[in-house]
């Protein structure tokens, strides 16, 4: 009973928040609604007994990803209204529903066709975090290391891409220097 109430409450909240994210014309509203939706999704993980995954969801998504988006939005002009694509609404909604149903069919087909056996079954009397550690550092050690290398590469790429010319500050320069830098940039873009 309690589980059902929690499920329907958080399902309603998550769908509402993501609808706001998708349909709002203000980028700031979309960002806030997305952050709220991420926290509500972690509630499903706690209901499902995946405690560690829920904690990771909160830490990574609302702690790191949303903070990064918020800092990134300082570079962009987010106060103006976002322009939307003008397309046929029925085509968009129809295609989205079709694709989503196909994704669930991909998930459900192996479950329906055979009796699925647990590959790495859960151990009784051991907490979720300990189970995750046991499986992650034995069976999934190589994917884990590869994911670490991928995150390192992404960090280096982010620094290299966004950190260009971070050493010179536009507020501390005089007008002629800024004009010269802009001219150089325009030349680069045109060539």
């Amino acid at each position: 009973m309690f589980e059902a109430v929690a499920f329907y409450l958080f399902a309603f909240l998550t769908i509402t928040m993501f609808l706001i994210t998708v349909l709002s014309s203000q980028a700031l509203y979309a960002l806030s609604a997305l952050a709220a939706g991420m926290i509500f999704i972690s509630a499903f993980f706690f209901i499902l007994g995946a405690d560690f995954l829920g904690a990771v969801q909160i830490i990574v998504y609302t702690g790191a990803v949303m903070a990064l988006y918020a800092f990134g939005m300082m570079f962009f002009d987010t106060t103006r209204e976002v322009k939307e694509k003008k397309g046929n609404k029925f085509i968009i909604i129809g295609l989205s529903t079709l694709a989503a149903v196909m994704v669930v069919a991909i998930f459900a087909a192996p479950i329906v066709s055979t009796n699925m056996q647990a590959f790495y079954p859960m151990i009784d009397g051991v907490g979720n975090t300990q189970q995750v550690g046991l499986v992650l550092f034995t069976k999934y050690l190589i994917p884990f290391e590869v994911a670490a290398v991928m995150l390192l590469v992404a960090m280096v790429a982010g620094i290299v891409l966004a950190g260009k010319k971070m050493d010179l500050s536009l507020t501390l320069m005089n007008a002629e220097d800024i004009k010269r830098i802009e001219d150089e940039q325009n030349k680069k873009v045109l060539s």
Partner: protein
Amino acid sequence: MEIGLNHYLILSTILFAIGLVGIMRRKNLLLLFFATEILLNAVNIGFAAISHYYGDLTGQMFAFFVIAIAASELAVGLGLLIVWHKRHGNIDLDTMTSMRG
């Protein structure tokens, strides 16, 4: 009323459809990134639900890797967006036609 696997899969479908609608109607690249985050999270719910109802930890493992991929995709994508915005002053998808695609 008992909540079963189908409930979670239907919720996952609904969230995935919302994300796809977002991808198809957004023109601003930053908001397009938001829609991809919704897609990844919808799939994560499906993974966690299957992991719970079949007593198997593989689903949770894949959810972790999906989160790692989402984080690294965001770092690279946001860096590229900042570079593009510094050069051109906007991040609309329709203006990115320098490759005449």
